[in-house]
Every structure is written in structure tokens, then in C-alpha cells.
């Protein structure tokens, strides 16, 4: 029977490295997606995702289970990604170039997971429009989209009220809609 997150956390707290490895295995993709949604560059996102788990490893002794593990982990990820984004001095096109590179590589090996996506322009402009949002608005959109988190969970992760989450989501969607109307 598969261990719950809390059981694995307790094993980590007792010093079992394999339990932490299992937690990384469970959440690496989602954490990476959240961070990639907030940052522009894939390599930066990878580095911040690894740094997120490293920080989680160092702090796991203080995790008391007051919230779910993934809420706690996403809080670390979002804070680190927002910090990284503020420090980021790179070209705003990096993420788009990185994304295009991935898409082309996937086409070359004939295993494009985007086969069902009709409009490449929409994807490119969506990435650009997302990057133009503030980190706070980007965070709510990404957390809601990737994990389908409830407003309450997002508010716990971002340390704000549910009302703020709702208004940020509405604002962010409105902005995206305005910028992408021609491609929708």
C-alpha cells in the first residue's frame, strides 16, 4: 500500500532519504510546472525547482502537518520563483525561444504531445501574455490551472485572502482574454 505524504514526511524527519526521494518523485513535475509558469526560462525553472526541493529537505523537520504537504511545498516553490523572477535579468524572449525549441524537438522525433492543439500562434502569444502579468497574477493563474487548487488552498500558499485570489484570477483572465482575443 502506498504511503501517504504525511507518512513519508515523518520518515524524512526520522532521516530516511528514500522517503524524501519518493516525495520528490511525486511532486517534481507539478512543482516544475508551477515554477515554469512563473519564470521565463526553462533552465532557470529547473534550477529553482531543484532548489525548492533542497529547501524543503532542509526545512522538513519543522513541518508539523498543519497544512497539506503539497500546499507547503508549493508555497516554497512560488516564493522562490517570485524571488528568482525579480532577480532575473535575462531577455524576455528566452522562455519563448526555449519553448519553441522544445516543440520543434518534439516534432522531430514525432512524439508531439501538442498534436491536439490547433493554434500554435495561440500558444506562443499565451506564453507572452502570461509573462506580461505581475508575479502575483501569474501565480494564481498557474496554481489554479495546473493543480486545480481551490481558492482556499491558493490563499494558503500565497498568504492572502480568498477574496484576493478570486479578484486576481478574474483580473488575470480578463487581461489574457483581451490580449489573446484575436487568437481564440
Amino acid at each position: 500500500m502506498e504511503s501517504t505524504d504525511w507518512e513519508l514526511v515523518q520518515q524524512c524527519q526520522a532521516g530516511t532519504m528514500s522517503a524524501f526521494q519518493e516525495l520528490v518523485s511525486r511532486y517534481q513535475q507539478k512543482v516544475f510546472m508551477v515554477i515554469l509558469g512563473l519564470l521565463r526560462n526553462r533552465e532557470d525553472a529547473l534550477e529553482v525547482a531543484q532548489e525548492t526541493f533542497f529547501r524543503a529537505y532542509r526545512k522538513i523537520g519543522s513541518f508539523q502537518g498543519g497544512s497539506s504537504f503539497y500546499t507547503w511545498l508549493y508555497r516554497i516553490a512560488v516564493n522562490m520563483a517570485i524571488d528568482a523572477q525579480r532577480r532575473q535579468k535575462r531577455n524576455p524572449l528566452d522562455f519563448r525561444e526555449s519553448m519553441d525549441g522544445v516543440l520543434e524537438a518534439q516534432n522531430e522525433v514525432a512524439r508531439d504531445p501538442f498534436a491536439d492543439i490547433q493554434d500554435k500562434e495561440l500558444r506562443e502569444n499565451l506564453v507572452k501574455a502570461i509573462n506580461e502579468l505581475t508575479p502575483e497574477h501569474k501565480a494564481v493563474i498557474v496554481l489554479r490551472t495546473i493543480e486545480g487548487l481551490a481558492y482556499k488552498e491558493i490563499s494558503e500558499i500565497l498568504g492572502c485572502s480568498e477574496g484576493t485570489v478570486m479578484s486576481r484570477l478574474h483580473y488575470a483572465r480578463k487581461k489574457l482574454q483581451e490580449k489573446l482575443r484575436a487568437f481564440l
Partner: protein
Amino acid sequence: MINCERVQESISRLLDGELSPPQSASLQEHLSSCPQCSESRRQLEKIQSTLKEVLNAQASELEFTPFWRGIQDKINRQRVWYQDYLDWGRSVFSVQRVAWGVPVVIILVLGLLSIDFLLPDWRFGNSRNSFVSVDSIDTHGHNVALLREDETKTTVIWLYQDREGDNETADETVTTGPAF
């Protein structure tokens, strides 16, 4: 009559499943009769699904082994020589165990401190049965030596002069009883 501008906010909540069933039913009814709001909903759903697909595609490229190796490298770089001892200590002295240990230690310390009061005749071996002290009392070589013996409650005081060739004991006084 539902205001279309207000409906835009509600569509966002509808997509997120944050509307109550009556609110949801009311909104659905409006959407079925308002092409503009219905189109807005379609656009928002399209944005959401496209973003998810884009991010999913990126994340599916992520391989676990090198990712985990990167984390392990960071952990190993951070580990210092005493980290193994710290890990062991953390597992042994967990919060729950310390929570029980603190009152136990306090009770033991209080017990040891009050043992004289509870068991006045009890002593730790012979170490507290006698007391010896030797002090110089002036610059001419006069000294005082004190011996207290608890068992017989005897106190002996020697006064002596420290001169080469002379008898060491100049005076001797013996008192008995609880002089101290």
C-alpha cells in the same frame, strides 16, 4: 435581468467550481441565452486548457534521475561532518520524546536537591563525611587547619607556624559539637 459585466466575474468562479449550485444554475441559464457571455466562457476555457497543455508538455520532458541527482548534489554539498550526528540526535531527541524528558529531568533534579531534607542521614559515600581546609592566616608563616568530621560531629582546628626546624604545631584546639 443579469448584468453581463457582472457575469464575467461569475464565469471565472464557475470555471473554478467556486459557485454554489443555485448560483451556478442561474449563471448557466444566462449563458444559454446570451451569446456574448457564452463566447467569453469558451475563450476562458480555451486559455485555461491551452496553458495547461503547454506546461504539461514542458514538464513531461523532465526526467527524474538527473533531476534527483541535482537535488542530491545540493544536499551532499550542504552536509557537514557532524550532519550524521545531528540526524541521529534529531531522530532520538524528537519533540515528543523531549516533551516527556523535560519534566522527568526536572523531577530528578528536584529529588536530588531535596534528598538532604527527606533523608538527613543519607550521604553520597564518604565524600561528605569530612571537611578539610588549610589556610595561611598571616605573612609570618602562621596557618590554620580545619577538619570537620560529620559522623562523630567532631571539629578539629590546628593552629601552627610554618618554620623550618621548628615543630609544626604551635597550638591545638579541639571542639566538639555542631560548631558550624
